[in-house]
Every structure is written in structure tokens, then in C-alpha cells.
């Protein structure tokens, strides 16, 4: 009994990481209907940026994250403003192919710069610290922080969306970009800011990814797929849906890994496919589209 409870807890915590992967993807799809095939590689890029800041300035990982946040915001802003904005339109091919091209460029660029070796962000003793829950159950401090961060990020983004003028501009642009311009909203700038914010979340995700596990330049596409699965399972409706999607994916993977360590990833995909068959629009779909 305790065994299953443990699986559930660990899976939920893993889901926090997947939710962090997914929030950026969900955000930019929601605002500009852009599906970014380079999203996973941008997560890995952020992890390398944190690593590079740590090694070149000799700072600890948290300081490195703080420095990396504005850097990643700028990366996202420029990428969107200079290139991706040109691809938006009725045709879905240009954004897909351009971001796919970026995926290849980022993977190989990172390999050129950092080699194909596995890396890790070291955070000291907290990496292995855990809290005893009694009854033989324990949760790691880092996984717990990951989940809490995901929840915090969603709260912060929702506050932005529903309380700030910028958030209203995001929602208005998402509804009707043409009419939004009549409100003095510069779509190109709004999209660039949205991508910048998505990259901030991405850097946070990369921080937890890099502390939790090894990463190398080639692991981006798999992160994209987890992020995508979390978004679709949750439905395109809300960020809370994305969090639930991430948790379902995390639990499914943990159950799979428990049965056979080689089945972890496969179990997540199977859960995704089953939900897609039963609820094509996800668990919390958007009210109108």
C-alpha cells in the first residue's frame, strides 16, 4: 500500500518538472497559436546558459539562475521579434519548419560549444536532502521545490493575465489580433514579450532539470514531447490544466518505471495516447476557440 502511495507522491513531484517544461509551450500557443518545435532545445540551452554563468563567473547555481533569467528573456524576445513574427499567418508550415530548423541549430550549436558530454548543475547538499513523512515515506526537497515552483509560476502568470494591463493585452491579442491593434497594442512587441516570458519559465525549468539529472545537447526533443503531452492532456484551456497534465504524465511514468525501468517513458506516451483517444480536447478544454 505504502509502495503505491510513494509512487503517487514521486510521480506528482515529477509532474511538477513536466509542468514547468510545458508552461512556456502552453503560453505561447495560447497567445500566438505558435507551436515551437525548438522548445525542448531552448530548455537545454537555458541549462547550458546557467552552467556557463556558473563556471565563468564562479557563482552558485541560484545566482547563475538569477543572471540567466534576463538573458533568456532577451533570447526569447529577439528570436520572436526578428524571426518568428515573420512566420505567423494562416499557413502552419513556416512556423513549424523554422522552429524545427532552430531545433537542429541549437542542438548542434550546443554540441559545438560544450561538446556532447553530459553535464549537471550542482546545488550542494540540498540535491539529496529529503523530508521524512513517516511510515517509511520520504520526499526529496528538490522535487518538492520543483512542484511548488510550478504552482508559484502558474499563480504569478495568472496574476499577470488577470490583473495587469499587459495581461489584458495578451488575452485581447489572443482573441483577435487585428482588433487588438486598434487598442494601440503592437502585436509584434506583445508576441516578443510573451516569448520572453516563456523563456523565463524555461530557464526556471532548466534550473530544476539540471539539478535533478544529467543533461546534454541532444535531450531537447524528448523534453519537447513531455511538455507537449502535458499540454494536450490538460487541454488548451488553462495553465492549471497543464499542471494536471504534467502530473498525470509524471505519475504514469513513475508507475511504468516501477513495473519495469525500461518502460518509464513508454508508459507516459501510452497514458497520453489513451487520454487523446478518450478525450481528444484534453481534460480542461478551452470554452471557445
Amino acid at each position, binding site marked *: 500500500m505504502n509502495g503505491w502511495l510513494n509512487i503517487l507522491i514521486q510521480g506528482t513531484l515529477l509532474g511538477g518538472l513536466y509542468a514547468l517544461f510545458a508552461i512556456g509551450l502552453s503560453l505561447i500557443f495560447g497567445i500566438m497559436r505558435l507551436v515551437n518545435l525548438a522548445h525542448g532545445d531552448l530548455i537545454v540551452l537555458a541549462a547550458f546558459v546557467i552552467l556557463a554563468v556558473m563556471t565563468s563567473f564562479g557563482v552558485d547555481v541560484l545566482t547563475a539562475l538569477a543572471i540567466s533569467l534576463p538573458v533568456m528573456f532577451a533570447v526569447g524576445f529577439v528570436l520572436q521579434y526578428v524571426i518568428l513574427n515573420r512566420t505567423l499567418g494562416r499557413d502552419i508550415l513556416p512556423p513549424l519548419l523554422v522552429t524545427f530548423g532552430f531545433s537542429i541549430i541549437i542542438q548542434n550549436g550546443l554540441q559545438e560549444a560544450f561538446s556532447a558530454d553530459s553535464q549537471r548543475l550542482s546545488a550542494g547538499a540540498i540535491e539529496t536532502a529529503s523530508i521524512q513523512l513517516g511510515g517509511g515515506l520520504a520526499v526529496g526537497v528538490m522535487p518538492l521545490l520543483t512542484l511548488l515552483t510550478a504552482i508559484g509560476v502558474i499563480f504569478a502568470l495568472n496574476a499577470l493575465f488577470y490583473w495587469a494591463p499587459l495581461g*489584458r493585452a495578451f488575452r*485581447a491579442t489572443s482573441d483577435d489580433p487585428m482588433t487588438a*491593434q486598434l487598442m494601440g497594442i503592437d502585436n509584434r512587441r506583445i508576441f516578443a514579450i510573451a516569448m520572453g516570458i516563456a523563456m523565463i519559465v524555461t530557464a526556471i525549468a532548466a534550473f530544476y532539470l539540471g539539478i535533478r539529472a544529467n543533461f546534454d545537447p541532444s535531450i531537447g526533443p524528448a523534453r519537447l514531447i513531455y511538455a507537449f503531452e502535458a499540454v494536450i492532456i490538460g487541454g488548451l484551456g488553462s495553465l492549471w490544466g497543464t499542471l494536471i497534465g504534467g502530473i498525470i504524465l509524471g505519475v504514469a511514468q513513475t508507475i511504468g518505471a516501477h513495473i519495469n525501468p525500461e518502460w518509464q517513458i513508454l508508459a507516459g506516451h501510452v497514458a497520453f495516447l489513451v487520454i487523446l483517444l478518450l478525450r481528444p480536447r484534453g481534460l480542461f478544454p478551452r470554452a471557445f476557440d
Partner: protein
Amino acid sequence: MSLLETRDLTAHYRDFQALFGVNTRLEEGDTLAVIGANGAGKSTYLRSITGLLPGAPWSIVFNGEPIGHLPAAEIMKRGIALVPEGRRLFPSLTVEENLQVGAYGRTGDGAWNIAGIYSLFPRLKERRHQASTTLSGGEQQMVAIGRALMSNPRVLLCDEISLGLAPIIIRDIYQALPRIKATGTSVVIVEQDIQQAMKVADRLYCFQKGRISLAGSPAAFSRDEIHHAYFGTRQ
């Protein structure tokens, strides 16, 4: 100098030309009526002015400055606001948020703010937290007008604000016009319904197939002249 002028304005949708050299002027504080049959190019004229359709710099002159080439968001910031055809409210925003977003690019220094809009259209205040999609057509039109006013524009462009509304609702909406003009705002009213427009206008333009078929003071024309300019009949 006129506040807003179009000079030989042309407009295209890909290969299709919708406007062929349109010349209009709007004086500060005046109200223009633009009439014409369906498809005459009235909405295209407004889309050009607001920057939704690109054009040559000097084809539109606002306050002495060429603005024909500017993007829509820039033009709005200079003080031209549009109440678009079909209202185009933002469905995921509440009534109040729709109004607030109207001031995103510009607040201006005029009298219009949320409280001012609610006093102009008291019915909106009760519905302030409702989704804009749950409102009646007339109420939605009020939100659309209020949203445009929130930027305290120098020029307010209204595209068929009476379309699809019951006569008494139309009357309610038109009753707001004098108060809007009283704040010094210049207004362009586009209508298919000639009567409404003529009553409030200082000057009249009639569009026909992308050209101006009649221009002048509304009082100066006979029914027949307007009829001809509107439909293009008479042998």
C-alpha cells in the same frame, strides 16, 4: 488646415482595388456622415485611416502629419479610435476589461474613463463583470463605443453602429453622440441607414463602388440627388 484628410486614397485587397482616389476632409469638432450601399468601400475607408490596410504616407494626413504608412497601433496612439463593424469585442475579457483595454495604447487627457463610460451607458455598470459575449447586441455596441472612447481620441470613427439593432436601441445609442461631441471629439459616422446619419452630420460623403459620388452639406441635397449618388441609378 483640416484635422484629418484623405488625399487620393486608394486601397487594395490583393489584386482587388476597393478604393479609387478618395478625397475627404474632417474639421476639428465636426461630424462627418459617410453613406453608401453595401460593398461601396466605407469600411475599407475606415480600415485605411486606422492603419489596418497599408497605404502611401501622404494619402492620409492627420493634424498635418502624414500617417498613411503607419501601423495601426501607432495611429491609435495619435488619437484616432475605431468602433469596428460588427463590434469585435474580446470574448475572453469581461465588459470592464474590454473598456480597460481600450486605453492600453493611449489614455489621452480628456474626460473619458471607466466612470465616464458608465455614466454615458448606465446599463454597462451592472454588467461590468460579465463576459462580453453574454450581452445583448445593443449593450455590446455600447461597450464597443466605450472601448474606443477610453483612449480619449481626437477622432472617433464609427462603422455601422446601428447594424442589426432595434430602432429604440439605435435611438439610445445615437443619444450618446451629443455628449461625445461635447468633449471636443470629431466623429465620422459610417451608416447604410441614411436618415440616422444625416441628422447628426455637419458634412456628408456618399460612396459608390470605391469612389465618392457626392460630397457636401446634408441640407444642400435633394432626396433624388442622394438616391442617385447612393444607388447609382438615373439614366
